[in-house]
């Protein structure tokens, strides 16, 4: 057994986290910053933070992940990181010529109490920031929240730094996608374009972390939201914040700054959450739902109805980030599956309320936990086994020990490809998820079913 020391018996822990179901703020901030065109993320702290974040994001995306660090040593920890950040800014512009440097803090620089805006102002006064370039920042203490909080904070910083209150009105809708894959961001744009609704998606990693092989590494790939576009978000019709955890803070900040009203929607994973997203685009954008989108939806419903017998009543355990896990829970319920264990590592009591609400409505009894970990998640499965696990790559240890099929979803997925290219948001994304779930069940059946009951046809 891989996780041979995990006992079935649940025991309350109040100080020890084992096998976390979250990570720290800065990696989320780094990921969000990559979604800005010609932006270099910068980690203000020890260089190990930046090395870890770049490694993890690279393993997840199989793409170059560029970011710089302040490389703190003991001296910087004692005297503060001003000299390091100033020097970093100078070197970054000389070597990498970005339009934007997006500084996020770390637990170290937060404990020291470095005042980033002050350091940046000094650097600007000393002429170290070239004309027309911007250094932005977000405070991302690792001892608060999770990587999702970090994503939310850096996304909010984009609004705080770039959004202009008096921006000219446009017919655009701002869409904040949340901590989803580059492929998901591309799909949200496609869906909106299909409906003839003009959206501005930010951040947008879709063209940054899915770069083609051309024989030359483009340090700043084509993608990412343009700074000039970010300046205009204050003139948009409204903001759709997809995910209360990852996206709402930026939408709130924009309302405050430029009076752009917003709606917080679930991450559009699954039929119903996508319906709500499409409907919001339709309502706010003042368009009819196009035939093509309605057809996409119909195709999805067709698939789910035809395959219902394979989903119905299956028990599933879900672990991951709050926004996508809420949507996945709802999708599993749409499929008549039973999400009996639903866990996130990110703190937030609302998660439990929301998921419990969904389960109660469907008449499913389940365990729901926030600020929890994968050790606990595994113990829940030991006490009530499931037919399927949906979660990140770390779940494979549980899946193997418990001989339970796994559908990989979330961050990080280190051991498979596909999530970079094929979305799970929208109707098409839901089809892909349904296909993956079906494959997981049927592959198992093909492997384990008695020879006499071996089936040729679905």
């Amino acid at each position, binding site marked *: 057994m891989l*996780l*041979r*020391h995990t*006992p079935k018996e649940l025991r309350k*822990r*109040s*100080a*020890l*986290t*084992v096998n*976390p179901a*979250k*990570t720290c703020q*800065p*990696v989320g901030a780094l990921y969000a910053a990559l979604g800005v065109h010609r932006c270099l993320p910068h980690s203000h*702290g*020890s*260089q*190990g*933070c930046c*090395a*870890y974040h770049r*490694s*993890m994001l*690279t*393993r997840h995306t199989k793409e*170059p992940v*560029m*970011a*710089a*660090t302040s*490389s*703190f*040593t*003991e001296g910087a*920890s004692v005297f503060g990181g001003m000299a*390091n*950040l100033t*020097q*970093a800014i*100078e*070197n970054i512009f*000389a*070597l*990498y010529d970005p339009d934007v440097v997006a500084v996020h803090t*770390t*637990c*170290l620089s937060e*404990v020291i109490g470095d005042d980033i805006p002050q350091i940046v102002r000094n650097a600007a006064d000393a002429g170290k920031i070239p004309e027309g370039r911007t250094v932005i920042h977000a405070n991302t*203490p*690792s*001892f608060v929240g*999770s990587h999702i909080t970090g994503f939310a904070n850096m996304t909010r910083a984009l609004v705080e730094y770039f959004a202009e209150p008096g921006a000219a009105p446009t017919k655009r809708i701002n869409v904040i996608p949340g901590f989803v894959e580059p492929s998901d961001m591309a799909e949200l744009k496609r869906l909106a374009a299909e409906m003839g609704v003009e959206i501005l998606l930010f951040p947008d990693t879709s063209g940054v972390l899915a770069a083609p*092989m051309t*024989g*030359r*590494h*483009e*340090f700043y790939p084509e993608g990412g939201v343009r700074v000039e576009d970010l300046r205009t978000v204050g003139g948009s019709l409204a903001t759709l914040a997809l995910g209360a955890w990852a996206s709402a803070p930026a939408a709130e900040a924009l309302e405050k700054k430029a009076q752009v009203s917003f709606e917080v929607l679930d991450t559009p994973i699954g039929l119903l959450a996508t319906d709500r997203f499409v409907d919001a685009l339709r309502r706010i954008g003042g368009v009819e739902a196009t035939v093509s989108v309605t057809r996409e939806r119909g195709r999805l419903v067709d698939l789910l109805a035809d395959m219902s017998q394979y989903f119905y009543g299956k028990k599933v355990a879900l672990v991951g980030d709050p926004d996508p896990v809420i949507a996945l829970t709802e999708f599993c319920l749409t499929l008549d599956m039973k999400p009996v264990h639903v866990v996130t590592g990110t703190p937030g009591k609302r998660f439990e309320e929301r998921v419990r609400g969904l389960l109660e409505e469907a008449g499913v009894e389940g365990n729901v936990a926030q600020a929890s970990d994968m*050790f606990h998640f595994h113990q829940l499965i030991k006490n009530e086994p499931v037919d399927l696990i949906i979660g990140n790559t770390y779940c494979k240890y549980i899946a193997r020990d418990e001989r339970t099929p796994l559908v990989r979803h979330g961050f990080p997925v280190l051991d498979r490809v596909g999530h970079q290219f094929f979305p799970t948001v929208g109707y098409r994304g839901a089809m892909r998820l349904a296909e993956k779930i079906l494959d997981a069940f049927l592959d198992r059946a093909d492997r384990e079913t008695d020879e006499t009951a071996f089936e040729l046809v679905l």
Partner: protein
Amino acid sequence: MATETLRPEDAKRALTEAYPTKAARKRAKQIVVNAPPDAEGFRPPILSNTRTTPGVITQRGCSYAGCKGVILGPVRDILTITHGPVGCGFYSWLTRRNQTRPPSEDAPNYMPYALMTDMQENDIVFGGEKKLRKAIREAYEIFRPKAIAIAATCPVGLIGDDIHAVARDMKEELGINVFAFSCEGYKGVSQSAGHHIANNGIFEHVVGTRDEPPGGKFRINLLGEYNIGGDAFEIERILELCGITLVSTFSGNASYDQFARAHTADLNAVMCHRSINYMAEMTEEKYGIPWIKVNFIGAEATAKSLRKIAQYFGDPDLVERVEQVTADEMSRVRAVIDEVRPRTEGKTAMLFVGGSRAHHYQELFREIGMRTVAAGYEFGHRDDYEGRKVLPFIKIDADSRNIEELDVEPDPERYRPRKPPEELEALRAQGLDLGEYEGLMADMEEGSLVIDDITHYETERLIELYRPDVFCAGIKEKYVIQKHGIPMKQLHNYDYHGPYAGFRGAVRFYREIDRMASTRIWRHVTPPWAQDPRPETLRQAS
């Protein structure tokens, strides 16, 4: 090929010209054109183990990564708890590919577990010691380990949590060994500081606590082997064939008890000089165990290392057996070299990785006729480049001074010189390089580039200038290199392949490089229409 016409001095200039003045000056001292030794045997000096200039985009990680990840990571039955916010423990969870083989299905193996205190704002404000104590108790209740290690992250040192006091108290309370590592990420200038801190801790708290030696006539420790992708298993296989007993490895496939009785070995064989030379020196001073540098990366290097071990023990049967094993294994290795070499001969490689791999892997490339045109370490020191003879001349800067040097004296009961001084002298006279390491430069061609702590900027320029056939580094560099259309080999995690150590590993590596150098996909980077992008009608017209 570009390398034939490009002068290394010009390449060096091209690498540094974009830096602001101060950074350029520093980088110029870290980029050296390799030259033959001077009359006294010294190579050109290279600035290393020095602070990375902020903002340059470095490969380097931190002290915590070196301590918790590299040295403690491969040990299966010491339960390590990371004291800090969630990130550090998360990122170091199973990501280094250390393999381990517990002796039985129910023997302890904590490697798939990441334990941490997940410090919250309250713990930062009011101190985290209470939470740490509680976490240790909770961990003990679940896992019942024989030893618990505590690894510090950045905020711990700053807020003043006394993790060593907590360790002492918990040791008393639980009746098991509990020890702590002050490996905050800001210590030192790279992972290297963490290696040193880990060596000190294991040496102080574990080594020498179990006196019964294992059986076997020729007992050695293997130092600085971390069992990435199963390397240690291949080395264990070879040592067993030769009749050499492995008392302990630091720290691939290792267990607590192996460390505890490491002082019963009669020789320390050092693989990664950078990360573990401290342990070699300290165990020699305290217990009287001499050390030699070995290298099990490369078939010839493996054979040579085995011969050195045999020479040290001086037993004719052992010498004979080593020769037999080597001859037997090498016949299979040579067959593969002959098969692969026509496709790899004359190709070029670059290696920028770690603190020993950038040196060791040159052996493997050489064996299949490939040249290393540029190499350097991520966290090496001058002695790893220029050889240990520069040790007396290395200036200790403030960053290194902050890392504790243990004051080691001979153990009153356990110190036992393994051989009388005159015998050691005789061995030296016969060419056995006891306690020596020549460094990377000694094995590199004249005119090759040696670059310490290479930056992203330099990596890209280097690729444009040289277009090597294979580039070796780590995960952060992997896809940058490949986007340039050059196959990239990860030498931290072997691209989830391996093992590459020993004879069988060498064969696997040759085939892997053969695959990389001959993979068809690289020929298809340019679409056919880009070769003549004009539409058909225009083409006909011309």
